[in-house]
C-alpha cells in the first residue's frame, strides 16, 4: 500500500517511502527480532483521544513485554511516572534523534546504538521531520511509527487509522503478541 500521509503538511517529497504495516504478528516479529529496540514517546501520549486507555499505558505494556527502554520526550515522563513507570531516558525529541543518527552512539542502555526505534504519541508534523532525519542519516537502524497517521518517512508505518477503533485493536493485539512471543522465546 502506498504510504500516503494523513496531514498534507507531511506529504512525501522524495523517492523513498516506507511500508504500511497493519499485521500485528509482522510488527511483533520486527520488534522481537531487534537486538536493541527503543521506544520513543512524545507529548501526545498524555492526551491522545479515541483509545480505551491512555496511549502511555500501551507504551508501558509494550516496553514491559519485551524489556525495551523508553525515551520519554517532551513532558511525557510526567504521565509515565503517574502510571508507575520510570523511563530510561528523558532526552528530548531532537536530542535522541541527534544521538540515534550516529552509528557509534552507545544507546540508552550504553550497550550499543539501537537497531529499531518505535515512535508513539508525537505531533505528526514534528515526527515526520524527525523521521526524515533518520531516513537520510541513520541507515544503521529501522523505524516504526505506531502513530495513527501515516508517516511516509518511517520504514514501517501504521495506516491512517484516525477513528481509533482499529488503532486500539492493533495496539492491544501487538502487546498480546509481544507477550506471547516473549513467553515462547
Amino acid at each position: 500500500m502506498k504510504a500516503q500521509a494523513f496531514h498534507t503538511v507531511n506529504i512525501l517529497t522524495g523517492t523513498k517511502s516506507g511500508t504500511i504495516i497493519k499485521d500485528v504478528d509482522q510488527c511483533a516479529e520486527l520488534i522481537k527480532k531487534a537486538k536493541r529496540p527503543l521506544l520513543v514517546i512524545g507529548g501526545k501520549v498524555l492526551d491522545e483521544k479515541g483509545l480505551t486507555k491512555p496511549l502511555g499505558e500501551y507504551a508501558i505494556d509494550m516496553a514491559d513485554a519485551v524489556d525495551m527502554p523508553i525515551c520519554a520526550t517532551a513532558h511525557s515522563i510526567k504521565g509515565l511516572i503517574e502510571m508507575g513507570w520510570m523511563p530510561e531516558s528523558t532526552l528530548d525529541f531532537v536530542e535522541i534523534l541527534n544521538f540515534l543518527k550516529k552509528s557509534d552512539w552507545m544507546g540508552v542502555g550504553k550497550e550499543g546504538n539501537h537497531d529499531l526505534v518505535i515512535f508513539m504519541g508525537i505531533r505528526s508534523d514534528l515526527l515526520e521531520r524527525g523521521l526524515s532525519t533518520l531516513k537520510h542519516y541513520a541507515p544503521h537502524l529501522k523505524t516504526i511509527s505506531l502513530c495513527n497517521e501515516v508517516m511516509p518517512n518511517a520504514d514501517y508505518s501504521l495506516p491512517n487509522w484516525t477513528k481509533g477503533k482499529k488503532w486500539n485493536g492493533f495496539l492491544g493485539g501487538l502487546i498480546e503478541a509481544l507477550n506471547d512471543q516473549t513467553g515462547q522465546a
Partner: protein
Amino acid sequence: MNKTKQKRIEKIINASDEWEPVGPTPMPDISTLRGWQMRLLKTYKPFYAPSCDLCCRCTFGKCDLTGNKKGACGIDLSTQQSREFLISCCQGTAAHTAHAIHLLDYLIDKYGEDHKIDLSKEVEIEAPIMRTVMGLKPETIGDLRKGLTYVEGQLCHLVSSTHTGQEGGNLDYEAKAMHAGIMDMLGMEICDIAQISTLNMPTSNEDTALVDIGWRSADITKPVIICIGHAVAPSKEILDYMTANGLYDDIEVGGICCTAIDNTRLSDSARVIGPLSKQLSYIRTGVADLIVTDEQCIRCDVPEEAEKTGTALIATSDKVSYGLEDVTDRGSDEIVDMIVNEKRQVLILDPVKVGEVATRVAQKLAPMRKKEFIEECNVQGMAKACKRCGSCDKVCANLLPVGEAVYAAANDNLELLRGLSRACVGCGKCAQECPEGIPVLNLIQAVASTETFKMRSGRGAAHEIDIRRIGKALGIGSGSEGRLEIGSGAGRLPGVIAFVGCSNLPEADDIADMALEFAERKFLVLLTGCAAMGAAMKRDADGKNIYEKFPAEFGPSGVINIGSCVSNSHIVGVAVKVAQLFAKKPLRGNFEVIADYILHRIPAVGVAWGAYSQKATSIASGANAFGIPVILGPQGAKYRRLLLSDGEEGDYPVRDFRSDKVVEMGGPYPDHLITLVETKERAMVTIAKQCLRNNDTGPLRPLRLFHYIDLHKKYMGSLPDDIHVHVRSVSEIPLVYKREVMEVLEKKGWKPRETVPTPTWIGTYPSKASLS
C-alpha cells in the same frame, strides 16, 4: 585586507573619530568572522531534518539526494539543507533591510539626512549593533544609510554563494547563515532607531501606553481602516492626515501584525486587531471599509478576499503590488473616485498620498456599507451541510480536529468550535477544501471570543540605567574583569527570556502561560511582534493579563513589549550593552569579543514559539551569531536545521580570562544554540536550563538550578536526570532540594568540578580578536 578596501572602510566608519579604537573586524565580509562561526559550529553541530529529499534548483535535476547522496552538481543533502537555510536567512534579512531602505528614504525626505539620532538623553550607546559590527557611531539618520549600503553588499555575496556551482560545504553555508543573521540585526536596528528618532515613538520609556488588542477592539460604527504588514510610513501618514483634519476621533485605525504594534507607538488610540493569524478571518468579516497593505506577512490573496466583502484595498509597497495599477502620479480626487465609485483596487507608492486617499475613502465608503458579524445563532445552520468527510482535518496547518468541531456545531454543540478558535492559525485551508462549501473559517470566527485586552505599547531601546540594573542583578562582573558583584536578594535575576516571532502557535495560550511562569519566577520577560500580542490575550483569575500584572521595568519580574519585528535588534542590543558597560569591552569592530562574552556570560534565551516566516530564521541566526541561544516550537522543525551540542568530550575547551589556562568544561553552556521542543511544558524546563552559563557563581548558580529543578518537578514530575552534570559543587545545590539532589549525586558517583569564573573562547581558535 587589501589597502584600497581598508581605506574605504576607514572612510565609511570615520576611523579617525576617536570614540574607541577600531577593533579587528570593522565591516566584516562574509568570511571575516568565519573563525568565530566555525568555533560555534564545532560545539553546536548542524542537525538536519530535510523537508524535501530533492534539489530542484537547476536544469541538471531534479536530483534525488536521499540518504545524503550527491546531485548532478556534486551537492549532497546536508549541503543542500544548509543552502536552503541560508536562502531563508537571506530572504529574512532582505525583508527587514528593504523595509529599512524604504523607511529611511521616506524619513530622510521628510526630516533631512542631518536629522540627529535621538533615543532620549538616557541612551548613550545609540546603535550597539552598528558600533559592534561596523565600527560606526552614527550621529544622523543620514549616517544610517551607510549601514544599509553595507548590508546590501553583503547580501549580494551571500545570495551569490547559493548559486549552482558555488559553495560546497554545509558548515560554510551555516557560517554564512550566521553572517546573514548579523546583517539582519543591523538592518533591523537601523530601521527602528530611524523611526524612533523621527516619529516620536517611545524610547526607553517604562510607562508606555496600555493599548487595546482584540479583533473586536475597533468601533465598527465608525469608518474602519485596517493596516496590514510591517512598514509604518503609510499608517503614519494616515494618522497625521486624520489629526490635521480634525478626524482623529471619527475614524478607527486598526492594524494586523507588526504595523499594528508600530501604530500604537505612534498613537495610543490605534487598535491592534491581532497577530498575523487573524488576517484572513478579519478580512472575511468585511467590517473593514478599507485595507491598506504595506509589506511582509501579508496574505497573497488579500485583493480577492477584500473584493468578496466589498472592502476597498490600497497596496502601498513595490514588493506587494498584486498586479494592481500604479496610480501614484494621479490626483487624490481621481484616486478616491476610482476606489469609491469604480470599485478599483490600487497601488499607491507615496505614503503621503496614501494618508489622504485612505482617510477620504474610508469616510465615503463607510456609510455605504452594511457591516455585521455572523451571529453565533447562525453557526449551526451553516454547519448543517457537514458530511464528516474529514477533508478539513487533513489540510489544517495546525493539525486541529476541524471536522469533529464543525459536525458538533451542526448538532448544536459549539464548544469544540470555540476551543478550535483559540488554536486556529487562520490559514483558511479548511474552507477551501470543504466539498460542501461550508465557510469553516467564518464559523470559527463567529464563535471566537470577542474580548478586548490591553497590551503595552513597544518601548524601543533600553537605556544605560536599565542595563546597569539588569547587569548587576544578573551577577555580571562590574568594573575590572573577574570582579563579581552579585545583585542583592530580591534584585537577583535568574535570566532574561525573550518571546519573539510570529503566531503559528501550537496552542493560543502558550506564550501567555510561559511568560507568566517566568515573570512570577522573577525572570525578565521581553516580548516583540506577534508574540507580544499573543501574550496579552489571556487573563488570570483576577482579570489581569501579564501586561497589567507586572511592571514594564528592566529587572526581576519585568514584562516589557520591546516593539515590532525590527525591535528584536534591541534585545541583542541589551546584551551588547551589558558587555560594554560591565566588562568594559570596546564595541567598535570587535564582534567576536562581544559575542563570546554574551555566549559565556549572559543568561539570555530567545523563544520563537510560533515562528512561521523566513524572517524568523534570520533573526534567530543573528541571535545565535551574537551568542544567544534560541528555542523553537514544534513547527520550527520545518526550518529543517538546528544547531545542537552532543556533549562529546573535547568539544568545549574554554580559556579562563584571568589565569589564561585552557580548561575542558563539562558543558557546554548553553547546551544547544538553536533547538526545538514539542510541548509548552517541556519548553518551560528547556528555557530554564538554557539560562545556565559557565560563569554562574555566587548565589546565581543555585538560583538558576533551583528554577531548572523546580520547573522539572512541576512539569515533568521528577528531578532532572542530568542534574549531576550541572552541579559543580555542593554549595550550588538549592537548599530546598539538597537532600534529593545529594541522593542522586551519590548514586551517580558525582565529584566536584572546577568552575571557570571568566570563561572565553578567544584564544582557543584562530582569531584576530584581542586576548586582553
